[in-house]
């Protein structure tokens, strides 16, 4: 290669120094990023390679479609609920099952609660540390932190004494020799820009956010019967409601849900959003990471207001596709059309009969074919450098009408903005106004991070709307929570196909299924991280991660904080299982500069 322009408009140059960021994962499921830097340490080529997808048919073919949700929950550690919901929607679609209004409201509440919790934990636990220097927080003046806190929000936990206590706790923790969640980062790097008092405020809220999530999860426990893996059921929701009773879900539980919703709104609007603005104000000129977001975006749309109506007009957060950055036109997306969503494997470790062609998921196949290209360096078990000219990832390359698309909160926000969604327009315009930034500023790493925060507030407020909708329906005397008319397989057609889709916290998620003689015949999922972490396609279009890294200058190639910042802004999700304990707790990421 050396230098080339991709069909989707990006210039790649692999002539410079190569940096490899390779988180070590014990078994399949890790993501590895390789970039080439020019003489000014600017990223000129980016390669995203992952081992995340093996095809669900390998575990689901021949099983009972009504059980599929429980299996799909396990393919991903964090996205459990969204896979379960997608699965039951796919089966209902295949069998022509309409769900009751209460079930629609409760599912919306569960999904909204998941977005709220997931975004909150992602921001504080995973992503904030790309912007916040924890060690610098030890140097903060608690008085200055208190002043800062009071200047940005009405949140009551703001006294100098409170911040002094947190700082002392943090100090003891650090002095005990283990930084725990904060070890092995790039503390002190010039890439960090917050003053110590802002760092202390953010670390304090990190602790408050981790504490607060235990409230949000109760919503899943109440409606799903258990946590962390709630129950789901084809036809509705697996719970009965009796406002006057004491056995099933009664008024006492519903009042608890209502109070958790209020607390969530308060926490997000008084802590998360002000933090986001405060942090962003120090990084306003860090405008990198836009990649595909200024060009091609995809959202399926979510939260059907009325049950069983999948039109975008019925969605609380309408979806669609944007092409070439043209916000004046939102394209309608049809997940059934064989010409629209297709997956390619020319650069993936799978084989197709004809790899120039893509396959619609209903016709999808997952035939592993691991083969390293002629220009790879290292050995098969110790790859030093990947050859992106050949097959280079276990992730397939999904495309919409042939286009590489970005999915996730930013995609949802831009699509809804382009559709003129009033609340979302107000949120976006308000944030940009407060930061003094123009609209194109959202096409960036920070824009992605900001959209997730705004969406967290949106989903918390929408929980209130949906809860009130549920209560009104219950008060009108409708207590149905499931439609079990087609539960028994003898009511099903001999053969049928279905598709279910959900806007998961990380983006557009779809399950395409084929049922034959009461059993699953094929099961294909296209998950958000497949869209975003996608390798190249036969035409040479690069995916969202690769595009987002291009043009980013690195302060120090040995400390790839800028790469992590942008990749984290997508909230990557890998079907990974890395919790296996090691006695020495070795580092999860290694950085190799070649």
């Amino acid at each position, binding site marked *: 290669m050396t230098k080339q322009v991709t069909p989707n408009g990006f210039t790649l140059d692999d002539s410079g120094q190569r940096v490899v960021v390779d988180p070590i994962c014990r078994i399949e499921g890790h993501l590895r990023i390789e970039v080439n830097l020019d003489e000014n340490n600017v990223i000129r080529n980016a390669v995203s390679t992952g081992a995340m997808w093996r095809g669900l048919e390998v575990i689901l073919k021949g099983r009972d479609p009504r059980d599929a949700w429980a299996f799909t929950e396990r393919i991903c550690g964090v996205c459990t609920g969204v896979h379960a919901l997608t699965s039951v929607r796919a089966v209902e679609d295949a069998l022509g099952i309409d769900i009751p209004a209460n079930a629609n409201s409760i599912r919306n509440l569960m999904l909204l609660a998941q977005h709220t919790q997931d975004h909150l934990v992602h921001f504080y636990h995973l992503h904030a540390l790309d912007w916040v220097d924890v060690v610098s927080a030890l140097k903060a003046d608690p008085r200055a932190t208190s002043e800062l806190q009071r200047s940005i929000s009405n949140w009551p936990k703001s006294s100098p004494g409170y911040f002094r206590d947190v700082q002392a706790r943090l100090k003891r*923790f650090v002095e005990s020799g283990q930084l725990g969640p904060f070890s092995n980062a790039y503390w002190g790097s010039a890439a960090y820009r917050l003053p110590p008092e802002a760092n202390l405020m953010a670390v304090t809220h990190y*602790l408050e956010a981790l504490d607060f999530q235990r409230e949000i999860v109760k919503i899943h426990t109440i*409606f799903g019967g258990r946590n962390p893996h709630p129950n789901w059921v084809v036809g509705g929701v697996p719970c009965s409601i009796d406002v006057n009773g004491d056995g099933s879900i009664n008024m006492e539980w519903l009042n608890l849900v209502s109070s958790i919703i209020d607390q969530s709104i308060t926490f997000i609007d008084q802590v998360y959003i002000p933090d986001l603005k405060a942090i962003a104000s120090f990084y306003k000129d860090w405008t990198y990471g836009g990649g595909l977001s200024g060009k091609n975006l995809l959202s399926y749309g979510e939260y059907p207001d009325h049950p069983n109506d999948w039109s975008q007009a019925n969605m609380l957060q309408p979806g669609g596709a944007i092409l070439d950055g043209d916000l004046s036109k939102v394209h309608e997306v049809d997940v059934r059309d064989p010409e629209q969503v297709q997956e390619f494997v020319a650069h993936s470790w799978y084989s197709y009969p004809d790899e120039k062609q893509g396959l619609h998921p209903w016709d999808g196949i997952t035939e592993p074919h691991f083969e390293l290209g002629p220009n790879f360096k290292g050995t098969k078990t110790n790859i030093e450098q990947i050859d992106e000219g050949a097959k280079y990832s276990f992730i397939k390359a999904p495309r919409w009408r042939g286009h590489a698309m970005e999915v996730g909160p930013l995609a949802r926000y831009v699509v809804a903005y382009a559709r003129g969604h009033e609340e979302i327009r107000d949120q976006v315009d308000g944030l940009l106004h407060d930061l003094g930034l123009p609209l194109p500023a959202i096409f960036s790493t920070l824009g992605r991070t900001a959209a997730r925060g705004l969406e967290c507030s949106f989903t918390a407020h929408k929980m209130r709307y949906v809860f009130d909708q549920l209560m009104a329906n219950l008060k009108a005397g409708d207590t149905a929570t499931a439609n*079990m008319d087609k539960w028994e397989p003898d009511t099903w057609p001999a053969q049928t196909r279905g598709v279910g889709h959900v806007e998961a916290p990380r983006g557009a998620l779809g399950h395409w299924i084929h049922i034959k003689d009461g059993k699953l015949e094929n099961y294909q999922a296209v998950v958000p991280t497949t869209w975003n972490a996608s390798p190249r396609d036969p035409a040479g279009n690069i995916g969202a991660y690769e595009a987002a890294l291009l043009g980013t200058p690195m302060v120090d190639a040995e400390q790839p904080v800028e790469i992590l910042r942008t990749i984290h802004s997508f909230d990557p999700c890998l079907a*990974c299982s890395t919790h296996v304990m090691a006695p020495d707790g070795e580092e999860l990421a290694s950085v190799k500069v070649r």
Partner: protein
Amino acid sequence: MGAAEMQAAGGGACVEGGFDTLVLGIGNLLWADEGFGIRAVEALDAGYAFAPEVRLMDGGTQGMFLLPWVRSAQRLLIFDAIDFGLEPGELRVIRDERVPSYMGAKKVSMHQTGFQEVLAAAQLMGASPQRLALVGVQPECLDDYGGSLRPRVHARIPEAVERALAVLRDWGVEPVARSRPPAPGQRVGHDELELPVYEAGRPGCGAERL
């Protein structure tokens, strides 16, 4: 299960809280021996009942999302596949401060949140369990998607349950042997994923082969 029971199985169940001892199985049951922790807590649940202050839980690979329960527990017993460089199938019980609680922050995904990090975060929040125990087995095979426990790992489950019971008794918890396993819908794991169902339904390994 019929339609009515299926639909009534969930809902309104115990909300978090009200327990002081948490027995947590962690791992991914879709990846062969990675499922050890889940299968072990299921076996404990099938054989023994406990007072309401003892909570048994299938934690899957939920990482940081397990923090709300971990920080609420005074005593925490974990079943997990551990890589301590032992012979496959070897079992170890690790107690208290020897349960590792260290991990890195250079993670790319929330899925890379090791359980060590959950423990460290609980500690930083000033609410970590006073007593810890880890009942772990060295896995033989992790890289078999859709596969189940290998025979020598599976064979260790009764011993893992016995060792866990000993730890719990040491903590003052009194297990009560059950005459029969809990009914469907009442178990710690999902009925749809129970070991015999999971193994018999594996594509290409199911009824047609029997």
